[in-house]
C-alpha cells in the first residue's frame, strides 16, 4: 500500500498552515453542512423534527372529537385560546405554539443543544475530531450553530405545519384573541412571526444552559435532563411571588411575554426585558462553555 501514497504526507503544507498535512486548513475543518448532516442522520433529530410536524396534526385530530362540553376548557387566557383555536389557521398556529412553548420546545431545544457535544464524548468520537485537528473553538462554534439551526427548524416546522394544517381545516381568517380586537391575516402573520422570534430568543437561555452542560458532562442525558430540570425549577420559583424582585432575574420570568404581541397596540416592554434576560443568560452560558472547553482535558 505504500507505493501509491509516497507523497501524500510529505508534500509541503498548504499556504498558511505551517506543518500541517496537505490540504489541511483549520478553518476548513468540520464544515457547517458536514456537522448538519452528521446530526441529520441521527434518529433523535429525525424523531424530534417529525414530532414537530406531527403535533399540530394530533391537535387537529383531537379537536375533531370536540363535543359541546364547554365547561372543561377552564378559564382565563388558556381557555380563551382553546376556544379561539378553531377560528382559523392563524389561531390554530397560535394555540399550537402556546401549548408547546412552556415545555415541549424547551425539551427540543435542550435536546439539540445539550446532546451535541456530550453525545460525541460518549461515543468517543469527540477525541478523534479534536485529533483531526478541529480547533476546539471551531468545533464548539459549528456544533452550536448547527444545534441552533435545528432548534429554529423545529420551531418553524411546528408553526409551519400548524399554519398549513390549520388553514386547510379552519380557513384563512383574522387572528383573534381576548386581549385585543381581531388582527387582519396579513398583520396576523407578522405578529405570529414576532411571537416565533421572541420565543426563539427566550429559548436561547435554554440553549445556553444545555450547551454548557453538554460541554461539562460526557452524559448526553445529563446535559439535556439537567437543562430541562433547571428550567422547570426556574418556572416553579417564578410562581412564588414572595421572591419579589428576584423573580425578574429568573430566566423563565419573561417566557410568556410574547402574549403582549397579541394585544393592540403591541406591548413590547416585557419583550425587550425578556430579550435582555435571555441574551444575557445565553451569552454567559456560552462564554463559560467556550472558556471551559478550550481549556479542559478531554477525558472521554
Amino acid at each position: 500500500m505504500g507505493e501509491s501514497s509516497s507523497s501524500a504526507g510529505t508534500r509541503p503544507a498548504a499556504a498558511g498552515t505551517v506543518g500541517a498535512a496537505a490540504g489541511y486548513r483549520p478553518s476548513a475543518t468540520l464544515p457547517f453542512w458536514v456537522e448538519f448532516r452528521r446530526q441529520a442522520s441521527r434518529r433523535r433529530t429525525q424523531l424530534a423534527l417529525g414530532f414537530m410536524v406531527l403535533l399540530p396534526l394530533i391537535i387537529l385530530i383531537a379537536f375533531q372529537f370536540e363535543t359541546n362540553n364547554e365547561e372543561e376548557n377552564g378559564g382565563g387566557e388558556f381557555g380563551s385560546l382553546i376556544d379561539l383555536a378553531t377560528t382559523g389557521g392563524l389561531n390554530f398556529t397560535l394555540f399550537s405554539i402556546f401549548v408547546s412553548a412552556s415545555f415541549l420546545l424547551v425539551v427540543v431545544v435542550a435536546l439539540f443543544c445539550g446532546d451535541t457535544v456530550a453525545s460525541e464524548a460518549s461515543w468517543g468520537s469527540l477525541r478523534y475530531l479534536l485529533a483531526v485537528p478541529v480547533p476546539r473553538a471551531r468545533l464548539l462554534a459549528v456544533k452550536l450553530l448547527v444545534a441552533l439551526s435545528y432548534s429554529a427548524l423545529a420551531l418553524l416546522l411546528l408553526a409551519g405545519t400548524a399554519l398549513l394544517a390549520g388553514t386547510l381545516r379552519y380557513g384563512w381568517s383574522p387572528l383573534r384573541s381576548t386581549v385585543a380586537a381581531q388582527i387582519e391575516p396579513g398583520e396576523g402573520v407578522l405578529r405570529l412571526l414576532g411571537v416565533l422570534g421572541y420565543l426563539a430568543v427566550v429559548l436561547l437561555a435554554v440553549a445556553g444552559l444545555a450547551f454548557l452542560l453538554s460541554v461539562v458532562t460526557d452524559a448526553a442525558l445529563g446535559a439535556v435532563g439537567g437543562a430541562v430540570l433547571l428550567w422547570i425549577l426556574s418556572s416553579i420559583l417564578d410562581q412564588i411571588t414572595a421572591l419579589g424582585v428576584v423573580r425578574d432575574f429568573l430566566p423563565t420570568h419573561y417566557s410568556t411575554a410574547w402574549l403582549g404581541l397579541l394585544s393592540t397596540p403591541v406591548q413590547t416592554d416585557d419583550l425587550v426585558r425578556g430579550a435582555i434576560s435571555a441574551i444575557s443568560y445565553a451569552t454567559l452560558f456560552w462564554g463559560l462553555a467556550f472558556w471551559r472547553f478550550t481549556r479542559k482535558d478531554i477525558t472521554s
Partner: protein
Amino acid sequence: MRSPLSAARIRRALPTGRRAVAASAAVALLAGLVVWAVWPDRPGFRTESAMLTVRSGPDGDEPVDLDTTFYLPDGASADRKVPAVLLAHGFGGTKESVRADAEDLAGRGYAVLAWTARGFGRSGGQIHLDNPDYEVRDGQRLLDWLAARPEIRTDAEGDPRVGVVGGSYGGGLALLLAAQDQRVDAIVPMITWNDLARSFLPESTGGETTRGVFKSGWAGIFFGGGGNTGSGPAGLSGNTAAEQPEGAPASAGPPSPAPGQGPGTAPGAPTTGAIGDPSCGRFAADVCAAYLRIAATGRADQAAVDLLRRSSPAGVLDRIAAPTLLVQGAADTLFPLTEADANARGIAANGTPVRVAWFTGGHDGGSGPRSDSDRVKFLTAQWLDHYVAGEGAAPGDDFTFSRIAGFDAMDRGLVATGYRRTDYPGLAGDARREVALAGPPQPVANPPGGNPAAISSLPFAGSLSSLLGGVAGDIPGQHARFESEPLTEAVDVVGSPTVRIRAASATGEAVVFVKLYDVDPQGGATLPSGLVAPVRLTGLPETVDAAQPVTVTLPAIVHRVEAGHRLRLVVATSDQAYTTPTAPTVYTVAAGDAPVSLPTVTATPIPTEAALWRWVLAGLLAAIVVGLVVVVAVVRRRHRRQDSSIHPGYAGTPLAVRNLRKAYADGFVAVSNVDFEVHPGQVVGLLGPNGAGKTTTLRVLMGLTQPTAGEIYVFGHRLVPGSPVLSRIGSLVEGPGFLPHLSGLDNLRAYWRATGRPWEDAHFDQALEIAGLGDSVHRKTRKYSHGMRQRLAIAQAMLGLPELLVLDEPTDGLDPPQIAEMRRVLQRYATDGRAVLVSSHLLAEVEQTCTHAVVVNKGRIVASGPVEEIVGESPSVLFDVSDPDAAREVLDRLEGVRVLPDGEGGLVVDTNGTARSEVVAELVRAGVGVDRVVPRRRLEDAFLALVGENSRGSGDR
C-alpha cells in the same frame, strides 16, 4: 505509614477541597444576595399609637376618642424638627389602611399622623360625612396636637408645617380642612368629590341636584353595605381590605368604603354611642335620615341636598390657600373627573397653585397600572417636598394623564401610557372632533320597578370589566341606538364629549342614561370606564317631533377610538347603578340636531423606563458584538504569535517527546518524565503495565490533554492541543469512537469530511482493505463486534496515510490471524519515511511487531531502544538438560547463579554475569547432559526485570 492524613492524600484532597470552598462561597454569596433582595426593608422610623381625645362639634366641646398612630422618622428631635403630614383614610377604612403610605412618607422624612376617623374602627363618635363641625374640626385638633409635638417644625406658635394627604373620604377632608384651617401648608386630595350632592344625584344636562338621578348602587355600598349587611361588597372586589384596598392609587388612602369594613362592622368597635336604630349603624342621625329619604324615593329634597353640600368643598374652595395637587381617576363612576375639574377651577380662581393629574384607576379601576401609581407617588412626593418640606424646585402646574394602552402579557394587568401637557385644558379639551350619528327615533320602554336593568358598571368589579365592556349590557326594547360611520382616523378623546338628543314622553318626564360606546369592526362594543350620563328630562311633549333637543354632557373619559371603529350612542331607560321611576312608561328618543362632539388634547407621551430598556438591549447586543470581535482578534493574535518555527534538531523526526510530565488536578502524577523519539521507518512499541502512563502520553500526543511540562515535537513542530501538525498524525487512542447510527463506510466518510481535506487524499480503498470488513462495512457500527470496530478504527487512523501512526492497543479484540495480519500491515506502513507508535501491554505483540520499544513504568521510561537490545540485556538462559534435578544441584553450587522458578521442561537460569560456557562446562563436568542452551530472548523477562514483578500499585501511586 497508614495514617489517613498522609501527605499525598492531603495534597490530592486539597484542590478539590479548594474547589468545594469556592463553590460553597459562590452559593452562599448568591443566597445572601437573594435574601438581601427579598428581605423587608428596615424601617427608618418609629411609631407611637395612642387614643387621643379631642373636643369638636359645633361648639367644640364634644369629646371624641380618635385612634391614632404617629410615625416619627429616625433622627427627628426637638433640635432636628421635621415637617408633618396628616394622612386621612378612605370611607370604611381605618388608620391601618394607610399604613403603607404612612411608612413611605415617614421614610421620606415626614412625621406622619394617621388616625381613624370618627365613626370607624376603634375611634368613637358617629359618621358625619366630613362635616366641618365634626370630622374637619377633629382634623384641626390633630393639627394642634402636631404643633405641640417638639419634633415638628412650626411656622409660628401653634402652626405646624403640615400637608394633608388622603384619598376619597380622606381627600374630601383634606380639601375641607384646608378651607377651614389656614395652618395647612399643602394638600393632596385624591379621587375625591367637589359636590357630594352632585356625585350621588348627577344630572347631565346641567339640571338642579334636586332633579338628579340617585346613584343608588354606590350609595347602597356606602351606607347599606356598612350599616346593615355587615359584609360589604367584599365578594365583588375579591380584595382583602388590609392588603390593597380597591380604588386608590398606592399613595392615597383607601377609597370609600373598604370592603368588609363598613361602619359598625369593625371588630371591637366601641358600642358606646352606637345607635339603637339598626338602619343607621354608626351614621349620625341627620345623615342617616337624609339617606333614608333619598333612597326611599330616588329623589333628593332640598334639605338632603343642603346636608350633602355642607360636606362638600364646592362652597368653600375660595378659602383654600394651600397649594393643591388634585389626583383623580378616569375609571371612577363614583367621583368622576368632573369633580376634580370643579375643584381645580375653584381653587385656581384664588390664585392658589393647583396641579391636576389623572390616572387610569379610580373607585372602579383601583390603583391602576404600576406606571400610574408610580407617577402619582412621584407627584405627591414632589408636591409635599416643595410646599411642605421646602425642598426641591416648584413643581409647576403641568397636567399629566394616562390612557390604557392594552394588556400586560406578564401579570395580566393593564398597561397605561402617560402623557404630559404644560397647562390644564379642563374637560372641554383644546380641540374638538365632531362625528355624526344616525338612527331613527326609537321608542324605549321604562321597566317597572327598574328591573331588568342595563348594566354599565359594577362598583368594585375592577378595571378589567370596564375596559373590556364585559359587564356592559343593554336590555332589548329598553334602549335606543344611534351609530356613526367607521372613523377614518383614530381619535384620542380626553375630556367630556357632548351630544344632543330629543325625547318625548307621555308623562312629560323621562329618566334616561346616555352612553357612548366604542364599537370595533367585529361589533364588539366597549363602554369606556363604564361611565354613563344620567338625565332627567321634564316638560317633554308627547311626540318626538315636538321635542326640543337638549345637550347632554357625557362623563369625561380618556380613550382612544381606533380608526375603523364606530361610535354608538345608546340612550337607555334603566341602569342597575341608579334608581329609575318605577312606573312603566314608553319614551321616544331621537338624535338631536348636532353631531357628537369629542374633545381632544395635544400632549406628549411621558417617556418610560421601557425606552431605557430598549437602549440597554441595543447596548447589550453591541457589547456582545464588540466582545466577540475582541476575543477573536486576541485569539488570532495569540495564534499568530505562537511558535511556528521548526526545531532544527527534530525536523526529520516524526516524533520527539521531551521531558513530558502530566500531573492531574487532584495531584496524581500520571507521567513524571517521559522522553523518547520515533524515527522514520520505525515501529516503536510503548510498553508498560497498566497505569504506567502510556495512555496519558498518547492523549497528550493527540492534543487532548495539556502536559504539565515538557514538549512534543512532530517533524520539528511543537505540538500543542489543536496544532495543525496533528493533521499528520493518525491515531487510535482508548478504543474506537464511531457514530453508532452510521455504517462503517459512512463513519469513515464523515470523519474525512470533518477534516476538510481533499477527498482523493483519503485513500479509502486502502483503508477499507486494512479494515477487511467486507460487506459489513455497510452495516451500522452499532452492530459491530469489538474486533470489527477495532479494525475500522485502525482504518480510520490510516485515512490520509498520516506520516505518524499512533495506535493504542491496536490488537485488542482481534483474533490471531488478524493480529498476524495487523503486524504485517504496521511493518509495511512504517516505510517511506513514515513511522508507527504502538502502545501495548502485550509483550509478545511488541516483540514481534516493533523495531524499537520504550518501556514505561510508573510514569518513567525504564528502557528504550531497539527491541533486540532491550531483550538482549536479559541475563537469563534456558537450559534443556537430561537430568534437571542434578543440574539444579550443580547450578545451586555455582557462585551467583540462580535457578528461576519459571522453566517448563527446562531450567531458566539467571547466570548473573557468569559466562554461559562456564555454566555448560560445570554441568557437563557433573555428568548432566545438555541438549540445548537458549538465551532467554523474551521481552517478558526483560520487561519483568525492568519493571519488577510486582506491578501492583503502579496505578495508584
